[in-house]
Structure formats: structure tokens, C-alpha cells
């Protein structure tokens, strides 16, 4: 079809003639995609890491008597009523004694002459991974003290707070930076596209005066925006992947980060970012041409 041929010729010519501006737009798109996906990657990994470390978030309720197995379901129900509970374990004094020994490590000979009977019965409650809600944990622990026979509720207060603090700090940094950057990226892309078009205003004006149809004028711009999107996001993603590799190599020393697997974006999410940035570029270029093609 001759129409398509003209559009493609036009597009090719535009690329050749305005390659400086095109390169600038490409770079902008690349950087924007890189920024956004970089922060998304970090955010993703922080959430994952938090989930993994969250396994250890547990509360212990010390009881003043043994819970007979028949009572357990009722107690469990009461506990689950209040909060999102992952797992509940009932611990006898003997089990607790073994653990104390493990905790004392090499010094366990302290306990050599004792049996565990002086230790209280207890319930260990593991929560679903939800670090946001430290205040909630406090409320929950207060609720647990009202359970029948509950003597005292213990949880890794300091540790949880410190850990929660860091997760939160990371979250703030990531979200705030992400927001700022997405803002800038949008601004940069639209600004660059607008400038490219202002530089081509004369050309568009002449086309208009020569009676070019809307499709003839918009076609090349559309293809251009699309290609910018494709190449820009490909390059951005590639750059992100190299960033990712760098972080992995640099900070994944043995015994240090093995606790935490730094992983790349899942395929679907990477694809989504990809598709979205292509759409944005295409629509953006189409939108910014609007004011130049009237009558």
C-alpha cells in the first residue's frame, strides 16, 4: 500500500534529520524507565526481604497452668479472632527447658542439675507477614494478656522495632523517590517530545498548508513515539538488569546476603512496565502533536 510506504519514508527521514533530538528523547525515555523500574525493583525486594525475615516475628504467651489438649481449639479460636495469625504452637515446660539450654549455648551446664519443671507453659504465636502494623502487634499483645491463664506476653520488642524501622525507612525512601522520579520522568518525556515537535513545527505547518491528511501527518509521529517507547524501554530494562547484576555481585558476598535473595523483577511486571512505557510514548507524541494539526 502506497500510504504505508509514504508514512515509513517520512518516519525514516524524520529520524535522519532530527537524530539529535531523537537521541535526546530516547535517552530521556531510557532514563525514565530505568528510574521507575529501579525503584520498583528495590521496592519489590524490600517487600520480599521483609516477608522472609518476618518469619521470626512471634509473640509468646506465658501461662500459669497447662492447657489441656481439649481446650486448645477454643484458645486457638480466641487468638485467631483478633489478628492474622500464621501458626500457633503450644509449648510445655520440658520443651522450653531444652530451648533455654540451646540459648545458653556452651554455658548450658548451668542447667545441668535442673529439670524444666520450674518453667511455665507457653504459647508461641507466629504472625502473618505484616510489618506495617507494629502498633497492631502491641494491641494484639495486650489482648493476649486477657486470655484465661495468661501470665505475661513477650515479644522481640527492640528487635522488631529496629527491624521495622529499617523496613519503613527503606519503604519511605523507595516510595518518595519513586514518586518524585515518576513525576520527573513524565515531565521530561512530555517536555522532550514537545520540544522535538516545536523544532518540527515548521514542517508540520507546511504539511498542513499543502493539504496533507491527518493520517499523513500523524502516522510518522505515531510510529516515532512507538519506536521511542520500544527502544527506550528496552534500553532502560537492559540498564536495570546491569544495575541488578552489579548490586548482586557487589553485595552478595557469602554468608552475608544469602539470607536474602536479591531477585529481578518477575516477567509479568517487567512486561507491564515495557508495555506501559510504549503506550505512554505513543499516546504522548500523539497528544502533543494535537495542537499543531488543526484545520
Amino acid at each position, binding site marked *: 500500500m*502506497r*500510504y504505508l510506504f*509514504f508514512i515509513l519514508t517520512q518516519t525514516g527521514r524524520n529520524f535522519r534529520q532530527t537524530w539529535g533530538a531523537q537521541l535526546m528523547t530516547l535517552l530521556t525515555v531510557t532514563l525514565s524507565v530505568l528510574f521507575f523500574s529501579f525503584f520498583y525493583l528495590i521496592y519489590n525486594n524490600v517487600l520480599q526481604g521483609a516477608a522472609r525475615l518476618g518469619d521470626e516475628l512471634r509473640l509468646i504467651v506465658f501461662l500459669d497452668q497447662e492447657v489441656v489438649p481439649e481446650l486448645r481449639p477454643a484458645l486457638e479460636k480466641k487468638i485467631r479472632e483478633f489478628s492474622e495469625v500464621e501458626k500457633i504452637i503450644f509449648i510445655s515446660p520440658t520443651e522450653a527447658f531444652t530451648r533455654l539450654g540451646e540459648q545458653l549455648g556452651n554455658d548450658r551446664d548451668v542447667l545441668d542439675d535442673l529439670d524444666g519443671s520450674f518453667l511455665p507453659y507457653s504459647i508461641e504465636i507466629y504472625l502473618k507477614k505484616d510489618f506495617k502494623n507494629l502498633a497492631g502487634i502491641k494491641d494484639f499483645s495486650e489482648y493476649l494478656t486477657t486470655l484465661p491463664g495468661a501470665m505475661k506476653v513477650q515479644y522481640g520488642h527492640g528487635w522488631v522495632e529496629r527491624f521495622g524501622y529499617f523496613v519503613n525507612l527503606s519503604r519511605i525512601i523507595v516510595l518518595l523517590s519513586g514518586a518524585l522520579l515518576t513525576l520527573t520522568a513524565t515531565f521530561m518525556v512530555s517536555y522532550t517530545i514537545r520540544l522535538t515537535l516545536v523544532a518540527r513545527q515548521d514542517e508540520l505547518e*507546511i*504539511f498542513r*498548508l*499543502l*493539504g496533507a491528511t*491527518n493520517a499523513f501527518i500523524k502516522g510518522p509521529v505515531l510510529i516515532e513515539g512507538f519506536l521511542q517507547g520500544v527502544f527506550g524501554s528496552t534500553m532502560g530494562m537492559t540498564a536495570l538488569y546491569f544495575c541488578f547484576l552489579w548490586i548482586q555481585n557487589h553485595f552478595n558476598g557469602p554468608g552475608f546476603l544469602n539470607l536474602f535473595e536479591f531477585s529481578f523483577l518477575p516477567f509479568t511486571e517487567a512486561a507491564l512496565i515495557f508495555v506501559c512505557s510504549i503506550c505512554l510514548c505513543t499516546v504522548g507524541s500523539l497528544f502533543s502533536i494535537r495542537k499543531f494539526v488543526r484545520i
Partner: protein
Amino acid sequence: MISDDHPAIIEFVKISKVYPPDILALVDISFKINKGEMVFLTGPSGAGKTTMIKLICNIDKPTKGFIDIAGNDLSKIKPAAMQALRQKIGVAYQDFRLLPRLTVFQNIAMALEVKFMDGKTIRSRIHEVLNVLNMTNKIYKRTDKLSRGEQQRVAIARAAAARPILLLADEPTGNLDSQAGTDVMALFSQLNEEGTTVVIATHDKSIYRDSHCRIFHLDGGELDITGQEPEDREQGTET
């Protein structure tokens, strides 16, 4: 578009154009230009010649009045129809409106590409028109590397290459010596003989002094027409 019951290709009815705040560029102007006619538009600098050409190709809107171009009422025309109409009108602007970074060939080709002509026709048309204007040796030069007179001829060539039904030329010989001016007028005459209606805005007395065409004289926005409306031209129209 052009039906037989519309002998006039351009019709102005009581047109006024006021530029804010108070510049009366055209004052209550009415006239008809028939298909196949050649008309000269004269008048001192600032008389409103360019304004009139802008109104004809709908680049600007009149403040008052009614304009009909080839059967289209410009105040009500739809974008698609306007685009189709513009493809049939060739305009050589006073400030050329060439793209400086494109070659002569590319600049002229644009006017043909918008009509989706095939490459071969485009090439032959361009060579043909540049030949008349003595510009074939500059065909692959960028237009910003040309002398002003050469640029002017490119602008004229672009207007003429698409073989429009209506050709508007604004001061086509302002930067041309007498020989080049003669070439340009020869091109216009040739097109006119093939049926194109030609409107030429100019100060250059030498190009219209000896012609038999009507002369539209503008001064201070007022129109004064001299010469006879040719009745015998109408059969020369092209579809």
C-alpha cells in the same frame, strides 16, 4: 468539487478583515474570479495583498463576509474537505516557507507526496517544472544553501508541480532578475493555458503592464478592478 454551475472558482462577498486592534487590511471587498482566468493583484506595500491570499487558502478567517472557493463555503468547510481542497491549490508564499534542511527535490516532493503520487510521477514532475525555471542544477542542494532568488523559484516550483486548479503566487519575482522573472511568468502562462486559474500578487509593473488580464488594485484595503472579465476562457477548465 467543481461543478458547471459554479463558473467562479473564487468568490468574495463583502469581505472585511480587521487585525486587532484597528488595522483595516481589507474593507468590504466583493469579486469573482472565474475558472481558467489569470489575475494580477497589485497595490502598495501593506495594501492587503497577502491578507487576501491568506483568506483564499483559509489560513486566516475574514472578520466579515462570505468566501466561496471552488464551491466550498470556507466558513463551514470540514477539515477533510479543506485538506482535499488545499491539495488542489498551489501557493507560492511571499516568505517561501521552505524547509531549510531539505533539498530542493524533497521540498517540492512534499507537495506531491501528500497526494500519494508514485515516485516516478513525482520525479518527472519535479524535473519538468525545475527545467522551466532553470534550476535543475540545484535539485539536490539544501534550500538553505541557495541564493534568495533560487529559493523563490523553488517555492514557485512547489506551488506549480502539483498542477493545481488554482495557483496563488505572492510577489513571485521580488528576488528575481528580469530573465528569471520571465521564466516564472512563462511557467504561469503555460499552467494557465492548461486551465489553471492563476492569481499573482505583485508590485512589478513590468510583468503585468502588457498583459490582457484583469488587474485587481488594492489600496488601503479597498479594491479597484481594471480590465475585462474574460468570457471566452471558461471552456479551458480541468477537472
